[in-house]
């Protein structure tokens, strides 16, 4: 199917992933791949299930049915259980029989990082602290050693690494500022910086350009392109700004009512009839 990507490592693979809340099928049998070094877009009208897909990958909730693979290894897998056994109305029923669920922190430790649709910085802490906290994921010494300052080497390394990151991302000037005191666009950058501090290989960006003016979103596009190269990332992003999506995504998936309706290059998507219908409605 993806001949051009056949050689590349499959960083993320969502296989027949469904998510059902009560009677609402938010995500139905989604198949999605992100290959190494790619920037993949996930678009769709409001309520199409994009953020749900993110939440499934990052372990906020386990999928109702289906599996997610990271680097070809199983990350989460689930099948309809309990009440869902009868309620489940999605596809691929009965294909999965194993339940493997990981909490978000475990998934972050496996080098998957994310940002949030509505910025979730640690508001009252400084920019530096925000980035420093994300380094905690690498902490090896236990709390007793850490409190008695017997891990100063590790602590120093964490601080240096946080500083280095701020330097790379041009955030040194605002280092001591409280996160919530900064302009919106910059907060988005800081959220990405914080996600990068967990040392991810796969980065999930949930509407990084939301609320940005054309100039800001232009800057953001360059920024995303740059960090992909500098940090060797694969990126999956949800975005509504078509200019951004078409500008930097190599492949795009389109969701509507939880179902995948199209996938392909930006050009293919732009001329896809189903996509146009989903966005503009059908002419009766």
């Amino acid at each position, binding site marked *: 199917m993806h001949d051009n990507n056949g050689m590349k490592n499959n960083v993320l693979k969502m296989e027949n992933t469904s998510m059902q809340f009560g009677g609402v099928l938010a995500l139905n049998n989604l198949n999605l791949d992100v290959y190494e070094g790619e920037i993949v877009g996930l678009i769709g009208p409001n309520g199409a299930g994009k953020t749900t897909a993110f939440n499934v990958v990052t372990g906020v909730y386990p999928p109702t049915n289906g599996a997610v693979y990271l680097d070809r290894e199983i990350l989460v897998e689930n099948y309809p259980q309990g009440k869902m056994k009868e309620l489940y109305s999605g596809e691929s029923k009965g294909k999965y029989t194993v339940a493997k669920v990981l909490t978000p922190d475990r998934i972050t430790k496996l080098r998957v990082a994310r940002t949030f649709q509505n910025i979730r910085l640690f508001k009252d802490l400084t920019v530096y602290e925000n980035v420093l906290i994300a380094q905690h994921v690498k902490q090896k010494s236990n709390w007793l050693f*850490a409190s008695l300052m017997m891990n100063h080497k590790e602590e120093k390394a964490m601080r240096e690494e946080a500083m280095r990151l701020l330097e790379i991302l041009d955030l040194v000037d605002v280092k001591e500022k409280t996160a919530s005191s900064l302009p919106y666009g910059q907060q988005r950058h800081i959220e990405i910086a914080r996600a990068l501090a967990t040392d991810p290989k796969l980065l999930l960006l949930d509407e990084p350009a939301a609320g940005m003016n054309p100039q800001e979103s232009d800057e953001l596009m360059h920024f995303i392109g740059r960090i992909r190269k500098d940090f060797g990332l694969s990126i999956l992003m949800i975005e509504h700004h078509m200019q951004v999506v078409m500008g930097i995504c190599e492949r795009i998936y389109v969701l509507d009512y939880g179902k995948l309706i199209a996938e392909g290059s930006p050009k293919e998507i732009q001329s896809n009839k189903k996509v146009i219908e989903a966005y503009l409605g059908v002419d009766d």
Partner: protein
Amino acid sequence: MAFEYKRLNKTTKIILTLLLIAGCIVLTYMLDKGIIGTSYTVRIVRISVIYALIGVSMNLVNGFTGVFSLGQAGFMAIGAYTVGVLTIPLASRPNVYYLVPISEKIQDLVMPFGVALIIGGIFAAIFAALIGTPVLRLKSDYLAIATLGFSEIVRAIIANNQMWPITNGSLGLKSIPTFPSLFIPVIISTVGIAFMVLLIKSSYGRAFKAIREDEVAAEAMGINLFKHKGLSFIISAFFAGVGGGLLAAHLTAIDSNQFKIMVTYELLLIIVLGGLGSVTGTVLSSFMICSGKELLRWFDLPHSIGTWKIPIFRPGLRMVIFSLLLMTVVLFWRRGLMGRKEFSWDGIYNFLRRWPWRVRRLIRGDYSKKQEEVTPNA
């Protein structure tokens, strides 16, 4: 002219800190030897440092980790009773357990105060670990109610009939040896608070703060919520247990009614007044509240102008005044006295420097320059 925030150099700060420590030691020594103050003053200082330790332990959970726990009184009771049972001298035991004799298993068990204190802390920590598993899965108000319930359960168990051979039930324990010197509670509290400060400053402390700020984001940053909340909860319980043990030695007589919910509320008052998320604020407000309640006793006494007896001066007025003061403080310092800030020499220095500047501005009557005030982000 804008106000410029200046920092002191490092040597000055070190000298000031050493002076402060020396001052505290000298003050403690003088109080201890009776050079200044009375035994009443010593008692106030003692209770203040003990409440400071317990207050900081509560702030660790409530203010730094953002877990609204109200179980402190229960942990204190565990620590207090452990210390009480283990340190009452053998000779006084028949007098204490005069109704139901002490259990044979512990009747000859006497431990030095320090050891008993640590065992008390450990018992409290173990109890916290046990209740932590179900309780920490709850959120905000529900968690508060659950911890409150557990703390009442502890009190009920202590006063229970079956526990008489150990806890002496509702008669309580007495003849607990007190501190030979004021230095003992001061040093133990200082060490405990210093440990918690170091914990807060470590990477784990930063993780606690992250949980307080935003649980979802903290988890997405790889912080295991359950593990870190549990850690904070257990360490807090340990120091509450130690504080309870100190309280037992301070009071020399304890009974289960002293560990009612009121104690937790008093501690809550201390940490909210000092600032949720400020260690120095907690210590400060602990001294303020513990001494304030005593100093205001003047209002409880009858007073008269000439021969006219002023009718409002009667027992109970003290608490009215106390509440009014608290309300005033909370109105003007909405996030507590210190907010989330900590004491720093730079802060004091600039606070003092700002006064002449403020006065000058007042004289000039120029308020428009207010925005120019340059303050770094704290």
